[in-house]
């Protein structure tokens, strides 16, 4: 496809430009040992990959994100559907979502560590926490946005309440759910780094923290670039999945 090739070329050019500017800034503008140019960083990354260290850290962070993200989504979708569908449930649970969404996951790190220790559970909890409210709000908004005529059309074709929910409200909400999950995924990347910075034995956040302690400036930049690339790749994958699922009927996705 021509359009896709152009998009990929644009991405490559965009990244090339970013690295070129980084190189110029580091070699001409700053010229400090604290701001390494891209080449030594890439060399360091190659060395870390050869030793298997980078993969290990990336794997640790990704595994936590995936687990927490799946738990948070699995909890958030039904809660969001219930809030969007039933007025009493909305009245009851909306204060929760409106309360907790102003307590960022980063602020919950202390509690998580006290409750779950510095092992996997605290990180997975934090990712699930940051995921669930975004997914709940997006899902509930999606249910509320189902067009009145879509529901009426089903009613005058003879649909029961359950059929209206299952065959109209639910599929109409899917694009909103997927968009919420995509946002939650981005939040998960923010949260995992913060959590691993504070309390962890491995992961990209821990790598950042250790590199700061030992002034391994290249390692810091390797971790930063890895985060950026991972987030970018995950988001693209998510978008492709959404396209494959909903693109035909919703060209804006």
């Amino acid at each position: 496809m021509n359009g896709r090739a152009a998009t990929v070329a644009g991405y490559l050019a965009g990244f090339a430009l970013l690295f070129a500017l980084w190189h110029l800034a580091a070699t001409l503008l700053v010229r400090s040992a604290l701001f390494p140019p891209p080449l030594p960083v890439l060399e360091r990354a190659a060395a870390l990959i050869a030793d298997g260290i980078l993969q290990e850290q990336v794997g640790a962070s990704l595994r936590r994100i995936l687990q927490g993200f799946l738990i948070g989504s699995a909890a958030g979708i039904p809660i969001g559907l219930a809030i969007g569908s039933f007025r009493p449930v909305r009245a009851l649970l909306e204060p929760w979502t409106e309360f907790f969404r102003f307590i960022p996951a980063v602020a919950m790190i202390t509690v998580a560590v006290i409750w779950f220790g510095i092992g996997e559970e605290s990180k997975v909890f934090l990712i699930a926490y940051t995921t669930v409210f975004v997914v709940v709000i997006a899902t509930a908004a999606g249910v509320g946005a189902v067009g009145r005529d879509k529901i009426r059309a089903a009613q005058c074709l003879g649909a029961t309440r359950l059929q209206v929910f299952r065959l109209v409200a639910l599929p109409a909400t899917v694009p909103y759910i997927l968009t919420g999950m995509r946002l939650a995924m981005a939040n998960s990347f923010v949260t995992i780094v913060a959590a691993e910075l504070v309390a962890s034995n491995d992961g990209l956040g821990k790598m950042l923290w250790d590199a700061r302690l030992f002034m391994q400036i290249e390692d810091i930049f390797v971790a930063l670039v890895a985060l950026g690339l991972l987030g970018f790749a995950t988001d693209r994958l998510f978008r492709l999945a959404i396209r494959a699922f909903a693109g035909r009927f919703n060209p804006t996705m």
Partner: protein
Amino acid sequence: MALVSLDGVGKTYRGRGGAWEAVRDFTLDLAEGEFFCLLGTSGCGKTTVLNMVAGFEPPTAGRILLDGREVKGPGADRGVVFQGHDSLYDWLSALDNVAFGPRLRGMGRRARRAHAQRFLELVGLAGQGGKHPAELSGGMKQRIQIARALANDPRILLMDEPFGALDALTRATLQGELSRIWAGTGKTVLFITHDIEEACALATRIGVMTRGPGGTLKAVLPVDLPFPRERTSDAFMDVFRRVHALIHEEIVRA
């Protein structure tokens, strides 16, 4: 016995801004097989009348009977074609949109698709069943809506300004198609419009409403012209003039 009968029907909305009467003392009998156009200026309450017959909104006065039974809510015996095409299901193909009613009744996938295909053919979209609504033009979407309603075999077809958002040429084409389909299926139709020519082209009877608020039925005119209607004929023009005079009184009566 009338298929649908509205007996002293009224609708008053009560909100924070006080009460607002949309429809007042509306009485009308619709006979089996007729094509009734309800014509009125905007805001006269004609869509409210349709919504009450469809069962989307309950009347606050009088009652509505279908086959002698009081209308208590929406049901499969009254098929609705909506003004906008937002009522179509974006995630389903055109064919599956048309097959939606039979699906609700538990008809198997193959049977309901074969059934739906016949109605796609009826509205002239035989080859478009695999497309999704986002891939179809405005006129095609309204054809899908008509096919979807008819595929469910309702007792009456309720149409709420279905061609209002279309360009003039597409509208004229669809009016011709609808006339043909109506003649072929013998369905009873209640058709809401504010377009005098459209009413004259389609209806066997035209009901003209008074201006709102509190709109009611002002006059009912039988239209005895043969189909297909010749819009430039003297007889057509004569009907047009009579309906126009009735509507004009309502516009002037400001």
